[in-house]
């Protein structure tokens, strides 16, 4: 007999509610986990996607997933009703509180809205071996999704420095499209 109380949803289509009640579900283990596990999932997935679709396509998938994550994160965690300065402060705190990274603003062009920002101790890449690559494609999408949720504009976010390329912070050029 079918359980009519089950949610009519599939895990394959993202929904914030599908992230579940982590605190209730992990009563003893808690809501946190090692960065190692996060990276284990991320880089194995990257491995599979790269093998099946090639590195460019795999990076593109990561960027799109990051955009979706950033957009949902902004809608459910951040206050989108405040002015830009307050929004940036809120974002910086939220990224630190959730141990995603230390966001820092290097420059902002008030005329164009273009930004240069850095993320230190980045969840995705800090501590990776040097490979001469910028690897934070997921972050690029994540930042773009957050800003898009706040302003409604489209952003082209490109990582220009990365831990994996030999730097100690990840630096992103953010341009309004």
């Amino acid at each position: 007999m079918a359980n009519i109380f089950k949610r009519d949803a599939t895990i394959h289509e993202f929904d914030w509610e599908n992230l579940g009640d982590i605190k209730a579900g992990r009563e003893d283990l808690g809501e946190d986990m090692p960065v190692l596990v996060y990276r284990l999932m991320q880089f194995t997935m990257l491995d599979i996607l790269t093998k099946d679709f090639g590195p460019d396509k795999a990076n593109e998938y990561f960027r799109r997933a990051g955009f979706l994550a950033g957009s949902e994160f902004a809608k459910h965690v951040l206050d989108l009703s405040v002015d830009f300065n307050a929004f940036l402060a809120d974002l910086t705190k939220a990224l630190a509180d959730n141990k995603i990274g230390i966001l820092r603003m290097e420059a902002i062009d008030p005329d164009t809205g273009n930004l240069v920002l850095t993320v230190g101790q980045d969840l995705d890449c800090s501590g990776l071996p040097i490979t001469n690559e910028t690897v934070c494609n997921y972050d690029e999408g994540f930042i773009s999704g957050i800003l898009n949720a706040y302003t409604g504009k489209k952003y082209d976010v490109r990582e220009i420095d990365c831990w994996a390329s030999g730097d100690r912070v990840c630096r992103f050029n953010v341009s309004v499209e």
Partner: protein
Amino acid sequence: MSNKDLEIYYTYLRDVLYYPKRAKIVPEDFSDEGHREFAEAMLSFGGMVIEMRELAGSLSRGELDVSLPSSDNELAAPLKALHSTLKHLTWQTKQVAGGDYDQQVGFMGEFSVAFNEMVAQLAERRREMEAEVVSSKQRTDELAKANSIFEVITSSMAEWIVMVDRVSGEHLFANHQAKSMLASDTFEQQLYDILVEYSASMLIDDEPRKEEFMLISDVAAQYFEMMLYPIKWYEHEAVACVLTDVTANKEEYNRLEEVAYKDVMTGVFNRLYGMRMLEQWTDEKTAFRLVFVDMDMLKYVNDVFGHNEGDTYIKAVAELLQEVSSTAVVCRLGGDEFMVLIQDRDVRGRDMAEVFEGLREKLAQSSVVGENGELMYNRSISFGIIAVGENNVLTTSSILETADERMYEYKKAHKKERRV
């Protein structure tokens, strides 16, 4: 490795550290493949060190808008991170300077604590200032409301309100009615002279007081009652003068006084007023003379020549008696009797008996003659004088009786002089 090779490496490393501009090593100069690779590695390492030193130098001078070493230079990576942090702090400081107190610095130890505390204090100060602005605005609004009420009240009041600096005499405020009045050149100077005079006589701690005064214009006199309130008006010690035009009241009072105290036919005071003044002066121990005057032969004139002539005779006597002194109280007691009260200070050394004899003679000259020049009747008066001193013990009745008796004696003594 030969000593010469070692010397080249040593020199290059020393120059990288101390003389970076001349630091030079050429891998191709080495004949050995291994040395060439080693020299290339040293050249790469030396380049990184020099780049790092240049970046460190720029940062030490606060020069943040510099081109950064590429990601290939891993030695410079921590400095690039520091550069990023400094750029961020610069941006944050600009934000704070622009009033963005949401800025927080994290993960920078004591600096984070100090910076965040500074921003918190600035935010607190701004909150206090904003609260003060709100409070100030509320006070301003309340003052504006109070002022609005004040203006409505003062503009709708019939009274004139004028504020004067009691020290300098400066005009500080006038309500609408007062301004209209002040537009009249006739009153302005007179009024200010009075206000300044009264204001100057008040001290700031004095009780409010009432004054009365009169202004004379070309056409009429105006009477005022004025309340004076000493107040602090901003930096001024001021006096608020509230003036009421009581001219109409005064005129009505004068009219009633005329009716109550004047003899209608002659215009001199009546018996009521005369007796009141007699009692007042007696009570006040004023030194004065009372002259009881009786017209001679009035009954004859009335009977023979009619009451109109009798009235003319009475008016002539009343007019004559007023020549004694402008300050004398002349009153008609009734019929043919008059009383003249004159204070000793206004007698000015004159013998009042002589004065009245003089009046009597003057009256005789106005005696009435007929068409043929014959004398119709002789106008004359009889009088009795009593001097009342400061130590007087007589009652008013006694005083009047005494004067009456003396008048009678006078009349009797001069009976033969009267002729028809």
